[in-house]
């Protein structure tokens, strides 16, 4: 299943990574990562904290620039010369802390980037925003400010905001980590819907239900390296590495 690190990236894959590494001074955050993600695939990245999961997916929209190796998104190699506007319009990112713009209404949060970046006329941007807000079941809050919403509602707005850029890949960086169980089910439900629609998804999460039922493959990371890439059925029943077994034991006992 793992591609040979020596080969060139696969231009037909949505995301193709070869020997990707990233350093923070002396700390190796990512250590020679190689894998491919096909169009429409749903990948869940698991691993203990500090294993490099968030850093990995943040490399894909170059919010974290990688230091070495090759990264290709939609057939284009990503490096310092890459047009970031185009890349980031293709790859959406949802944060753990939502990071909504507090000074803008829900609707304006959703329309700001399309209007500024894509020069979408306001009316069109608002129409599209309302469509996505309905999809995440929050259309009735469109004129409120983020501070007036609950955490789960805010995260759903953040998803709608990312969708308004009509990305081909959605990255979720622990989207439910800051939420209470009730809110989690709402957000996971929306992620399920999106997955059904066929958008390529990479999700860093501890939400095992999503990992087990929706993911096509699980990437298990530790200390900046990929230890396993396997379908969830296999990962949850018969992990190949001891580290993964320990990790799963902890998750269950917790």
């Amino acid at each position, binding site marked *: 299943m793992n591609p040979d690190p020596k080969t060139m990236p696969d231009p037909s894959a949505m995301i193709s990574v070869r020997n990707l590494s990233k350093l923070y001074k002396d700390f190796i955050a990512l250590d020679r990562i190689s894998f491919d993600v096909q169009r429409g695939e749903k990948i869940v990245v698991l691993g203990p904290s500090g294993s490099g999961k968030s850093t990995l997916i943040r490399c894909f929209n170059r919010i974290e620039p990688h230091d070495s190796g090759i990264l290709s998104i939609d057939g284009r190699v990503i490096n310092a010369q890459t047009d970031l506007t185009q*890349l980031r319009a293709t790859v959406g990112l949802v944060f753990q802390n939502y990071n909504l*713009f507090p000074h803008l209404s829900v609707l304006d949060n959703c329309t700001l980037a399309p209007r500024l970046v894509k020069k979408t006329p306001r009316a069109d941007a608002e129409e599209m925003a309302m469509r996505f807000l309905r999809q995440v079941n929050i259309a009735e809050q469109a004129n409120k400010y983020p*501070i007036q919403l609950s955490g789960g509602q805010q995260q759903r707005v953040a998803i709608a905001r990312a969708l308004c850029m009509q990305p081909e890949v959605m990255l979720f960086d622990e989207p439910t980590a800051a939420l209470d169980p009730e809110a989690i089910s709402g957000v996971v439900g929306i992620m399920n819907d999106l997955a059904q629609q066929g958008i390529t998804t990479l999700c860093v999460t501890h939400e095992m239900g999503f990992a087990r039922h929706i993911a096509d493959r699980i990437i298990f990371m530790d200390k900046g390296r990929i230890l396993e890439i396997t379908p969830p059925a296999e990962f949850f029943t018969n992990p190949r590495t001891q580290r993964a077994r320990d990790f799963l034991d902890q998750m269950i006992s917790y």
Partner: protein
Amino acid sequence: MTHSMARFMRRCSSRFRPRALAAALAGVLAIAGSAQAAEPDLPGFIHDGTLTVCTNPTLPPMTFVNGTDVNAVDGIDMDIAHRLADYWHVPMVVTTMDFTGLFPSLAAQRCSMVASGIIKLPEREKNFDAISYQDTALVVVARAGTPRLSSMADLSGKTVAVQSGTSYSARLAQENEALAKAGRAPIIIQQYPTEDQVVQQVLIGRVFAFASQDVELYYRQEQLHGKVSVILVPPYPEYRHFALYIRKNAHDRELLEQAIATMGQNGQMAAIQKKWAISPDAAKALANTPAPPMFRWDTFFSALTSAAFMRGAFITLAVAVLSHFTAIMISIPMALALNGRDSLLKMALKGYVSVFRGAPTLLQLLFIWNALPQFLPIFREAWFTPFLATWLSLSINESAYQVEINRAALGAVDKGQELAGDALAMSRRQVYRHVIFPQALRIALPPTINEFISLLKTTSLASVISLQELLAVTQIQVARTFEFTEYYAAALVYYLAMVFFFLFLQKRVERRFAWADRHKATANES
């Protein structure tokens, strides 16, 4: 020989140096003898064909504002300056400024001459040429009814007020040395920036006496209603002549002496002296006017509605708004650089902030107005007005404070906001313009309004470089009329009105930041 000519000759013989006397006499003879058509030689200090006279118009009757128009400086000095300008057939321009700014401005070539009721003193003549034009005497003045003193030593242990920047305090210090040798208590010297404040200290009884010149006291009698009287005329050989000061130049000095001599000879000097009634007899008559009421409401209201005050308030407001606007514009990129990575630029900016926060604002104003032209002659030219100098100075000064507010406000915006903007493909400019700045503005607004209110009041310092802002206008009116309470009250009303307006504006703007508060956001919605 006329009376004035006799006075003039007496002055020549006793005070002028022999060489100067010869020159003056030669000048008189030359003018008297030659045809009137002969154009007098123009002195070098007449720059660009204009006689620029610097004065601090707070010393009646020598130089003061004799009405509500602050630009209309009047007095003996101004009359003499006009006659001099006529004599050389050049236009005259009067530049008013704080007393302490006069000599630095003369050195910086901003003035042709200083004519401001200044005494001829040897120590001043080390750096400048002084040409005397009017006799005078130092007087010690106390409230009416105070017994006369027999010598300066009688002031031992008493408090005396003098105008700062004048030589009186140095002279009193000399007295104190003598008193110390005799084992007696020194005279306590209090210095005030304007002559009217000096007089006020005696009127309200805070100090025992003040030192001044006789001519001023004669003139003041009308306003003082006989409340003060001379208690001592110390036998100082100096303090006997008012002088015009110019930059050191033997030729210019001769030409100015010639001109003054001519005015003494043709009766112009005598006419000026008569016009201003600078004699003891005239003063006594004036002293018998009735005492004024405690608070003259008509003075207060006419000050409040006067063009002079409105103009002063407008200048105060304009220089404060422009300076703060410029400071904000400078300080935003500075704050961004200071929040960024370490670099040489960041080091330099840290130095900038330290220097301009560390140095007193008054010192910075004086430096830019008086010292800068010595390095860069371009700042000596007429385009560099007191308004521009204040704007420049306060902008730089204020930016050093504002940068700290901006830095804190930018730093207080959650780092996730920038990340979110980046992730949504927005450019750096768009992220700052639409995401970071609007949020930083909410945090920066209250301390910024605070700074602005402080700056609005700091503008009053600019009176030292002759900016005719609100407080300068007030002081000039007070110097003219001695109606302290009325004019101070009018100035207070103006300052408070301006400050309240900006506080009101702050409230209005803060209402737009309801998004930061859950309850307010919900309240606004319903």
